[in-house]
């Protein structure tokens, strides 16, 4: 079943995906570069094409608090934010995940102040890696739309019941235009049936205490259960994507997509839009006879350790591209990948590449340079563990 094709930007694709998912409540506060998402959603509610309650809140903290309230009584809730908004919302994120509420949120990845900047990097979402939310990173507008639909199906899976954050790179994706297929509503309705009242829902017939206290005699076990369920959601992530493919004819290969990794000596790992640039670079390097591969990491929590280990078997050097800095250490994804390699008792050479901070371009030439450095390391070069891409002066 194919839908109509439209030439829209990433934010509009998100809004189209959310409309198709039929949330009961949208509570959001506008922030660049997410604004178009919530503008479109408020227009859909105004014109009646989305039968939802749009709550005009005064802050992101309230946006998520309203989504938590709505979700607590069994409503499908959506919000979207970015950067400082996500950080202002931060306190409420573990409330949603701890209460096991299947909220879906779009985050337009944007840098964090200060210095002030509205352009895209992934520092914002990295702050919330420990918030108990499943985290996706998407590559293009079609994937952004599709993941709104997949996101609810995953979050509402009775075995998962965990909120989902879909990360969409600011400007590079939110504000660029692509031809996007809008699925048919009936196909989406078949894939994503109305939310059944979850067991933890509150109602007048079944009054509940929300956000209960659990002292030192039970708190650890509550947290362990949440953690184990998040780990187990790895299989649901694969299953939901497969089912999506069966209905809509497109899949995203679950938690990660391995491109030309099978016979690769050198592999670069990316998350988000830069993957598109890297695909082209891999194609060109392959044509030149270089054994390079690429892994598009789509999910950072739960971290797909087993799939990474399988995809990196036999690879001699692994580079990880981070659009973030964990000040005082390295890129966050680099740390996670190195840990996964240790878990798999694998010891390829690894290099962390930090780039794209505050919206700095990551060009094809930058990625060619990254692959080149990985080959240099294989030839015995002693390079710094962390490399910086497209820096404009000496360091």
């Amino acid at each position: 079943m194919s839908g109509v094709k439209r030439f829209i930007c990433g934010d509009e694709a998100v809004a189209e995906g959310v409309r198709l998912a039929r949330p009961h409540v949208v509570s959001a506060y506008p922030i660049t570069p997410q604004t178009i998402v919530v503008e479109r959603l408020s227009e859909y509610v105004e014109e009646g094409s989305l039968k939802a309650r749009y709550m005009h809140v005064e802050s992101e903290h309230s946006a998520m608090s309203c989504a938590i309230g709505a979700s607590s009584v069994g409503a499908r809730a959506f919000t979207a934010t970015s950067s400082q908004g996500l950080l202002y919302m931060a306190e409420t994120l573990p409330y949603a995940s701890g209460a096991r509420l299947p909220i879906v949120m779009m985050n337009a990845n944007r840098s964090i102040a200060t210095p002030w900047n509205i352009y895209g990097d992934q520092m914002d979402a990295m702050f919330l890696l420990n918030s108990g939310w499943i985290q996706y990173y998407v590559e293009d507008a079609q994937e952004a739309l599709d993941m709104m639909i997949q996101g609810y199906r995953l979050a509402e899976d009775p075995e998962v019941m965990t909120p989902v954050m879909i990360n969409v790179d600011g400007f590079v994706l939110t504000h660029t235009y692509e031809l996007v297929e809008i699925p048919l509503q009936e196909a989406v309705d078949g894939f994503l049936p109305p939310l059944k009242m979850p067991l933890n829902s509150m109602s007048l017939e079944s009054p509940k205490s929300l956000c209960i206290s659990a002292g030192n005699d039970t708190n650890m076990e509550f947290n362990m259960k949440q953690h184990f369920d998040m780990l187990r959601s790895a299989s649901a992530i694969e299953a939901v994507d497969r089912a999506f493919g069966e209905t809509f004819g497109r899949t995203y290969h679950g938690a990660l997509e391995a491109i030309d990794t099978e016979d690769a000596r050198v592999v670069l790992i990316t998350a988000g839009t830069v993957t598109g640039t890297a695909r082209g670079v891999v194609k060109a390097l392959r044509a030149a006879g270089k054994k390079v591969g690429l892994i598009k990491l789509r999910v950072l929590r739960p971290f797909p350790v087993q799939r990474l280990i399988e995809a990196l078997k036999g690879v001699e050097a692994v580079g990880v591209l981070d659009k973030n800095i964990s000040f005082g250490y390295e890129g966050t994804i680099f740390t996670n990948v190195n840990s996964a390699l240790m878990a798999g008792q694998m010891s390829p050479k690894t290099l962390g590449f930090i780039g794209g901070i505050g919206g700095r371009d990551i060009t094809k030439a930058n990625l060619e340079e990254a692959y080149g450095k990985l080959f240099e390391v294989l030839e015995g070069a002693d390079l710094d563990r962390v490399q910086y891409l497209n820096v404009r002066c000496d360091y």
Partner: protein
Amino acid sequence: MKRPQVKPWAYPGRVQDFPLGSTSKSDHLVSINAGWRTLRPVIDHEKCIDCMKCFLVCPDGVIDKSGPVLEIDYDFCKGCGICAHECPVKAIDMVKEVK
């Protein structure tokens, strides 16, 4: 005293048997909570004028008015002393807990 009752709760045998999330049936008290009290408020019913100020200001809602006189639920009173401080006729004494 008509107070919420602590209900017996079987500690789950496995982590996965814990409730889904931090939500429970209302009124589901599984333990008392007053262990750190060092001073206990004691109402002198001779002085008490039933003005209900203590009932209104108690942050833990442990002043019970269901009986003929006001009573304090010591299973949940933390001993903060706000009731004694606010009592207009000084009818509440804070007495040191002795074990």
